[in-house]
């Protein structure tokens, strides 16, 4: 068991290191650098010598291996370097932009799970066949909706037509309602699909017939036997969908003009602000790896079949 835990943690660290190295190589491979982009602009009116001096000061002209080693060392210390464009430490930028994104992503994910579970269980419990069919086909509809279009439609309908949610000077929570909905819908769809399929499959298992033969009610069957077995395989998907969440957040923040990591990423890409990009990539990877590590570690707790089999007796 401890071997399993340490193995998984080791793997996670390895993935993180690979993500750091890959992003470093890719970002370094881009032509030009942030220093050139910023100071070459005629506004500054700098000469080539002066630019070279600045480049030397930021150490962007040194050997790539030296840069790699230094960046890695700094990252390990928690120092993400300076944003060239904004002229402030990257960590300071992250400190302002992270909380809104975390709120958005966290709420979005929670709502997505809630939505998926509701659709899945209602679709198996609903009293009428037409309602069940409707609920079962809902995920395929939701999965095909583009995020930007959904965002615009939500603003159109709920803000401009119905005037339910204000988009101009909204309150801190009001500003989150539509972005969270936008983010949750496409994430909930694949989750709901998996859950519906699992519930249908589990319901045909012999142990459900045995539980029924004990006199169990439908509600008991669903919560005590079907739910726990059906949720297990969905857990992996939930972990993978976290990646979607990060991608979805970028689009959502742009459409709703939120000042989060998504907006920061967009700007950093435009300006080739490498240290910012590198920090975002590594932090996203860290979050992704951490979530999937948590899923992996949760499995043996939820599924007794995955616990140590050394104690099996015949």
């Amino acid at each position, binding site marked *: 068991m401890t071997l399993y835990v340490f193995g998984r943690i080791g793997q996670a660290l390895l993935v993180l290191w690979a993500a750091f190295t890959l992003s470093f190589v890719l970002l370094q491979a881009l032509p030009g650098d942030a220093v050139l982009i910023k100071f070459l602009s005629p506004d500054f009116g700098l000469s080539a010598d002066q630019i070279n001096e600045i480049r030397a000061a930021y150490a962007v002209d040194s050997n790539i291996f030296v840069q790699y080693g230094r960046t890695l060392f700094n990252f390990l210390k928690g120092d993400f370097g300076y944003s060239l464009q904004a002229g402030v430490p990257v960590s300071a930028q992250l400190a302002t932009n992270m909380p809104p994104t975390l709120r958005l992503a966290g709420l979005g994910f929670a709502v997505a799970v809630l939505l998926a579970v509701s659709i899945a269980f209602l679709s198996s419990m609903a009293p009428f066949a037409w309602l069940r069919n409707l609920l079962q086909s809902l995920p395929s509809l939701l999965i095909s909706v583009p995020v930007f279009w959904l965002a615009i439609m939500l603003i159109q309908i709920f803000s401009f037509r119905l005037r339910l949610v204000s988009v101009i000077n909204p309150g801190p929570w009001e500003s989150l309602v539509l972005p969270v909905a936008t983010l949750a819908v496409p994430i909930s769809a694949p989750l709901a699909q998996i859950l519906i399929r699992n519930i249908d499959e589990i319901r045909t298992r*012999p142990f459900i*017939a045995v*539980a*029924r*033969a004990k*006199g*169990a009610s*439908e509600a008991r069957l669903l919560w005590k*036997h079907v739910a726990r077995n059906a949720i297990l395989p969905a857990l992996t998907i939930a972990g993978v969908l976290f990646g979607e969440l990060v991608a979805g957040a970028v689009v959502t923040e742009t459409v709703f003009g939120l000042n989060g990591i998504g907006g920061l990423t967009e700007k950093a890409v435009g300006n080739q602000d490498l240290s910012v990009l590198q920090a975002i990539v590594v932090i996203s990877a860290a979050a992704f790896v951490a979530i999937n590590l948590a899923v992996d570690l949760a499995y043996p707790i939820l599924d007794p079949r995955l616990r140590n089999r050394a104690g099996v007796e015949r």
Partner: protein
Amino acid sequence: MSPVQAPVLDVRDLVLSYRQGDERAAVVHGVSFTVEPGEVVALVGESGSGKTSTAQAVIGLLAENGRIDSGTIHLNGEDISRWSSRRLRNIRGAVVSLVPQDPGNSLDPVMTIGAQVRETLEIHGRLDRREADRQVIELLTSVGLSEPALRIRQYPHELSGGMKQRVLIAIAIALRPALIIADEPTSALDVTVQRRILDLINDLRREYGTSVLLVTHDLAVAADRSDRIIVLQGGRIQEQGRTEDVLAAPQNAYTRKLLSDAPSLATARPRPPIEPGRPIAVTVRNLVQDFPLQSGKTFRAVDDVSFTVARGTTHAVVGESGSGKTTTIRAIAGFQKPTGGEIRVGDLDVRSLRSEELRQFRRKVQLVYQNPWGSLDPRQTVQAIVEEPLLNFDPLPRDQRQARVRAMIDRVGLPAALLSRSPHALSGGQRQRVAIARALVLEPDVVVLDEAVSALDVTVQAQILTLLAELQRDLGLTYVFVSHDLAIVRQIADTVSVLHNGRQVDYGTVDEIFSPAATAYTRELIQAIPGRKFPRAAFDRPPLAAAGPLS
């Protein structure tokens, strides 16, 4: 049993149907029978006979598209056939309970054994946890589970198949119901485990006075364990009566057929002895197979097994699950390298074969698997399935290839019209014939049959065994026949190896194995064959074709 007592179960003119698309297909057409208190009634029939549907209707567990069209089901005097599922819930588990078919999948994998037994008690009454736990331990003890206090904290995957079935029986008897429905309770279990489980059900019935409705395809099990037998075919009762009467003088042609097809009820006449001097087709000498375990140790699955098979004869490898019989044949077929020992097929040393030689070797040794539902590609037609080995080995022109496929399909007794069908349109017996055709189309010397008839109904089983015997006689085939069923082995084999925990405990001719000289383990296996209560000779079928002259 006094005659004034009302029957526990009284089924009258029961008609059941299933919705298929827009139509309803009737599967049970007016079935009537009773089960008296303390009585064991066996519902016997093949797949599709309506026996399981009838049993499901009695406990109100018909599939969602199933329906009771007419008729009544009186349980303890009350007609439950029109009850809502909410009302049925009160009697399920309490008045009528179920021992299911497949213990492996009938317990919730993420719930402890204790919680699953306790659930029945919880549903039907308020008990405090300590009292419930005490009752659960008592129940597990009464079904003969060792260390019940440990078991309640274990999960299903930590128990063997026989132990799981004991847990399921504990669940079924927890509330001392008037009627237990046992739906093929032992068909997924090894024969010695089967006997112990059936003994247990019988003991509990005697102790509690519970009635049992035993649903089974195995007439031999019904013969040993029931007071009365009801024979179902195509949703109609063919015959019912006291077990000894039905077996001694079956009135119905279908019953007689079932009796003659049941391998364990027939007193097989042995095949003539193999004449000396036949060439040897397969030699296995001191075969050892180790598998590495996660802990770094090794597990010895096969430990020093030796036998020879003369050309044109059948050698049976017999054993329970975990005995090493499958590992042995995988080594013969060249699917895994043995750790030690020698395997020869004809004059080839199987261990020394390398990639292309090994591929060529496959045409000499072909396999037929247990499960004809899993071993045929559902997306291929029968034609494509049988043709595929030819494409791998014989670059024949298309018309010749098709002629060979056609001849082979004809040889295994299938109509040519099936060639364009896909496997799901075939019955189990037809599928197994396709699998045999696929194995024979390359004209192999040796055919390895891995439990090839175990998944089939007795009548189909008898037909396939007859086909195999004919093919052996006509084509001079050598069979290695893997089975857990000694009754079948007695019919088809010339020589037998009995494996137990990887060791060969007995080796000899069928006569020697069935003689008192066999080891205690083999005798236990033979004792466990059901159907010994009524040994009969009257309906023996003629012995299967014996090893014929070599062509």
